[in-house]
């Protein structure tokens, strides 16, 4: 006997993500999900973003890692609320993990919530967390050919950060080719070249982010 199911495979995750999204909207919190390979500079980019925007916005961070509290401690050392999620082996964050982490934060005191996803260019792309925007970071040493190998994450990201831009001269990184492929994959995504640890080029990225935060700031009922 044939039975129709017609259901999303990730329905449970997606329903919880919609709940997160509604909660963020009601509190006027803008949420960005940062995705990248391990070592691309997610935490450094978050620290540079905090340095640039902390006078304008109240910021909190959710750190996703397989193990350890290393990243949350780095953020908390700057006086920013940070919650660590340890996935215990899972390669990506899911919306229920975000909800549990969010429940420990005071959303009334936050304008910008940055989620640092688990270092991975594949799995995080299929999971909605209830964020407003997914943004990815590629670092120059990883090579300009990454969009060919991991097209999905480049297509799903609303903006692409090219980090460690100060090392361009010592790596065989073809910037024009990189920008060309990203444009073909995702024509509307801006590419922000910056060096997070040096604080260079951060402004274009934080201006883009600020415009998005302002748009989300008006609480909706």
């Amino acid at each position, binding site marked *: *006997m*044939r*039975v*129709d*199911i*017609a*259901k*999303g*495979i*990730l*329905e*449970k*995750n997606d329903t919880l993500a919609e709940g997160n999204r509604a909660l963020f909207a009601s509190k006027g919190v803008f949420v960005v999900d940062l995705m990248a390979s391990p070592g691309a500079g997610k935490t450094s980019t978050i620290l540079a973003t905090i340095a640039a925007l902390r006078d304008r916005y109240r910021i909190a961070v959710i750190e996703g890692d397989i193990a350890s509290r290393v990243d949350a401690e780095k953020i908390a050392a700057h006086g920013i609320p940070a919650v660590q999620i340890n996935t215990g082996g*899972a*390669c*990506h964050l*899911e919306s229920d993990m975000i909800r549990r982490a969010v429940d420990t934060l005071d959303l009334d005191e936050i304008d910008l919530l940055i989620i640092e996803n688990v270092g991975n260019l*594949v*799995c995080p*792309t*299929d*999971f909605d967390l209830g964020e407003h925007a997914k943004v990815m970071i590629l670092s120059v040493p990883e090579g300009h050919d990454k969009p*060919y190998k991991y*097209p*999905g994450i480049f*297509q799903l990201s609303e903006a692409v950060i090219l980090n460690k831009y100060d090392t361009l001269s010592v790596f065989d990184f073809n910037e024009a080719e990189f920008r060309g*492929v990203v*444009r*073909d*994959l995702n*024509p*509307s995504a801006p590419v922000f070249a910056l060096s997070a640890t040096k604080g260079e080029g951060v402004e274009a990225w934080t201006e883009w982010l600020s415009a998005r935060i302002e748009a989300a700031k008006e609480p909706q009922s």
Partner: protein
Amino acid sequence: MHEMGICDGIVSAAVEAANDAKASRINSIDVTIGVLTEIQEEALQFAFGVLSKDTIAEGSTLAVTMLPAKSVCGECSAEFGHGRFDAKCPECGSFVCTLVQGRELRIDSMDID
């Protein structure tokens, strides 16, 4: 490796629907996956074998239909199929296109006894 998590969604939805229908066994489950998701069918089949074990779905077939990517041009409204790297309107050359098919992750139906 996230196919395990995806497959957990398939098995639990199928088992739930089978229990609702008072089925004694599941013979096959039909799912539709868009090619632009990060799902690899081989890994999905492996995960299905592991996760369906000791459930009413054990031994059933996971029939996977892969859907190609399709977009609609925001400027000339042409609808066109494309691969990963060429979501550009073949009619007018515009890059302003909206994806209408290719990210599906859907359980369609199943065959039960």
